[in-house]
């Protein structure tokens, strides 16, 4: 593994040089690296460990290859490969191509590094490398992205420094950083120490995957980062957060460490579940309001991370599998969605929903990608997204967690609402006159999108391969494995067959198609031939309903409290303090200097003498 990482890190420099020479070769080299590491993932033997450099005395960094790292590695490489393919055409319009490619390669390398890490500090290092370069990539986007990058950096750093704090607490107490040893020691820990440690470690995952108190960066960051990178951000980087959450709830055996409460769930996990619930609600309700399509999907990420967290935190064989599977599905679906958005923005140069419309007539394949993506994201049957949502629903209902279930239901039905908004606003409806000459995107942008469509449909019909990987992970983490066959998913409260559902859907579709063909053919009329209550319209741009699509629903929660505003308040508070300090301590007159001087003198005297 260290060899692979070394190859990737050195290879990324090579990618940089190649891209400087000829950017297409650079992108191809990047794809080559990703495909090579994808191949290598299958050649590694699970359970091998290697030791690498040392940072603290007596503590070598270790790399461990586990089923978990394999699972997440595969997700992130699928995402990476498809996005890199997309870049073959997309990168043409981006400035600083060499740096862009270089950073992408570094991010993939460090992401794999995180998954391979066998000890907490190595994990932190790869984590921070990934963070740094992703921040640098984020700020290469639109004008707002500069501010967004700061936002992203600050919140991610809050998470990762909390994590590092926990790492040192563990190191100080146990003298080791290897996850395996710590797990053994912490599972017999009795004091409040384990609470502190686990909450701090979870903070990193919470910040990265966008769970409630630390979700605010997602909107601006996803909204304004370079379009292709948004896909990486959603599909690859946020799954690091999911990995960290798995680490928190499952690798650290929360079942053994904490007393078990209602529903057989450890008390610590309840804290996470509550956070997940809040994220689902916030993500759903805020996504419904967004007018920028990327920001909309960013909030949907908040909501879906909530699902992943809830699924994982139940620590049940179905729920845990559902969480992992949802991580997989969400990665693929959000990459599809963001790639289709990138394709749209590539042609139309805007991401505002109400500035577009009717693009389905110009970009049908992009539309299909988006459609399949949202069907999977919203969890509607023939696609894979429903399978994981089903698992999570089942476990919530089985354990009788009705409030959480209600949140999950709201999130799930709400997702129909928000995914429909770009569908209606961007792809359907009247074509804007300024987009008359828009063409479908070039072939290399289409290939990865359509391949992802096939993947999503395939795993929606035959989820067996992914479920096999998930059960392997569950076995490794001492959770009872999920019962399933290639197409049947079983739980203690019932089962269902993905293939039957798909077949019946196909049958229904064929019946409808036969009916459609039997009856008289309809005449194709242009979109401008509309029912207008007898009125004549000349500007059909205005005859497209996309501004404030759910205005009547948004009205219900117009005056909602906002964490984002709270954080802004904090920021302003710090700045005010800074202003205060600057005025009263640093820009003051000599008299004031002396005043503070004497105050310190007196204070020390008063306290210490």
């Amino acid at each position, binding site marked *: 593994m260290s060899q692979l990482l070394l190859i990737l890190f050195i290879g990324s420099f090579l990618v940089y040089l190649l891209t400087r020479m000829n950017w297409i070769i650079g992108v191809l080299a990047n794809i080559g690296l990703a495909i090579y590491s994808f191949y290598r993932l299958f050649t590694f033997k699970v359970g091998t460990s290697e030791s690498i450099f040392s940072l603290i005395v007596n503590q070598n960094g270790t790399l461990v290859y586990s089923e978990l790292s394999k699972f997440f590695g595969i997700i992130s490489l699928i995402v990476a490969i498809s996005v890199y393919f997309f870049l073959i055409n997309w990168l043409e319009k981006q400035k600083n191509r060499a740096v862009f490619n270089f950073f992408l390669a570094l991010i993939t390398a460090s992401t794999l590094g995180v998954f391979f890490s066998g000890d907490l500090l190595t994990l932190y290092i790869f984590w921070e490398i990934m963070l740094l370069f992703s921040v640098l990539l984020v700020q290469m986007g639109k004008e707002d992205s500069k501010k967004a990058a700061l936002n992203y950096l600050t919140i991610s750093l809050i998470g990762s420094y909390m994590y590092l704090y926990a790492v040192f607490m563990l190191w100080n107490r146990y003298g080791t950083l290897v996850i395996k040893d710590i797990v053994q020691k912490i599972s017999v820990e009795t004091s409040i120490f384990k609470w502190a440690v686990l909450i701090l470690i979870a903070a990193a995952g919470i910040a990265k995957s966008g769970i409630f108190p630390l979700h605010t960066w997602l909107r601006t960051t996803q909204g304004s980062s370079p379009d292709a990178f948004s896909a990486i951000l959603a599909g690859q980087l946020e799954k690091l957060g999911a990995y960290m959450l798995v680490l928190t709830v499952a690798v650290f055996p929360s079942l053994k460490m904490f007393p078990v409460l209602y529903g057989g769930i450890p008390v610590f996990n309840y804290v996470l579940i509550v956070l997940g619930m809040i994220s689902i609600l916030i993500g759903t309700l805020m996504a419904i309001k967004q007018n920028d399509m990327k920001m909309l999907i960013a909030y949907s990420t908040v909501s879906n991370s909530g699902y992943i967290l809830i699924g994982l935190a139940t620590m049940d064989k179905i729920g845990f599998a559902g969480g992992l599977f949802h991580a997989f599905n969400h990665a693929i679906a959000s990459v599809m969605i963001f790639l289709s958005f990138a394709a749209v923005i590539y042609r139309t140069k805007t991401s505002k929903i109400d500035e577009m419309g009717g693009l389905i007539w110009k970009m049908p394949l992009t539309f299909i990608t988006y459609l399949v993506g949202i069907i999977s994201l919203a969890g509607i049957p023939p696609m894979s997204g429903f399978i994981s949502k089903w698992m999570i629903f089942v476990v919530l209902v089985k354990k009788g967690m009705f409030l959480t279930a209600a949140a999950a239901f709201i999130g799930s039905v709400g997702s129909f609402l928000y995914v429909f908004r770009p569908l209606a606003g961007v792809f359907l409806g009247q074509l804007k006159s300024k987009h008359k000459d828009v063409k479908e995107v070039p072939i290399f942008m289409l290939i990865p999108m359509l391949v992802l469509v096939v993947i999503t449909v395939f795993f929606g019909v035959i989820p067996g391969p992914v479920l096999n990987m998930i059960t392997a992970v569950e076995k490794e983490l001492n959770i009872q494995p999920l019962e399933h066959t290639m197409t049947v998913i079983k739980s203690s409260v019932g089962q269902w067959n993905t293939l039957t559902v798909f077949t019946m859907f196909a049958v229904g579709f064929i019946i409808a198609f036969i009916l459609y063909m039997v009856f008289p053919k309809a005449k194709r009329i242009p979109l401008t*031939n509309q*029912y207008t209550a*007898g*009125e*004549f*319209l*000349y500007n059909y741009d205005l005859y497209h309903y996309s501004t404030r699509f759910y205005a009547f629903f948004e009205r219900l929660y117009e005056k909602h409290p906002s964490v984002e505003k709270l954080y802004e308040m904090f920021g302003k508070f710090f700045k005010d303090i800074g202003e205060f300090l600057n005025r009263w301590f640093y820009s003051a007159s000599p008299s004031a200097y002396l005043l503070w001087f004497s105050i310190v003198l007196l204070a020390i005297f008063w306290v210490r003498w």
Partner: protein
Amino acid sequence: MSYERTIWEKIADNLRSRSMWMLHYCTGCGAVELPPSMTSRFDMERLGMGPMATPRQADIFLITGYLSVKTLRRVIYTYEQMPDPKYVVGFGSCTINGGIYYDSYATINRVDYYIPVDLYIAGCMPRPEAIFEAFTELMRMIRKGEAIGWKKYKENYEWYKQNQLKSLGEVYVHDEFHE
């Protein structure tokens, strides 16, 4: 005035006569008499008839009242949006000869110069009894294949268009204030 129909078309016409969905074009005062014919006293629904919201769904185009140059344009527009087969019923005297507004510069005196009218209901206004009489007649015509205004419109499209243009005049400026 009937034409050759296949057996399927005969069945379809039978069905059409039992399920007539109307679109009202209510410019004049004639629509006053429609509510009584729909509500409990006369109950139009027992014949399978009912009002529809858009021309796409409607079978019968009910023009209730006089047409001016401005409204004729809309009537033609709406008529062309209706799916075939479609039937037009002129409701009240105004559609036949302009009614009491016959001498106005802006009134369209005969609707069937511009769109084919299958049936007129005379009267100012026609009472519900008259309306029902007319609709049962229309049902009979449809069943027999005699209500062929929509075919005539297709066949004589040039003539209708010419009449329409003559009355409406050439349109020079295309925006929402003209035409």
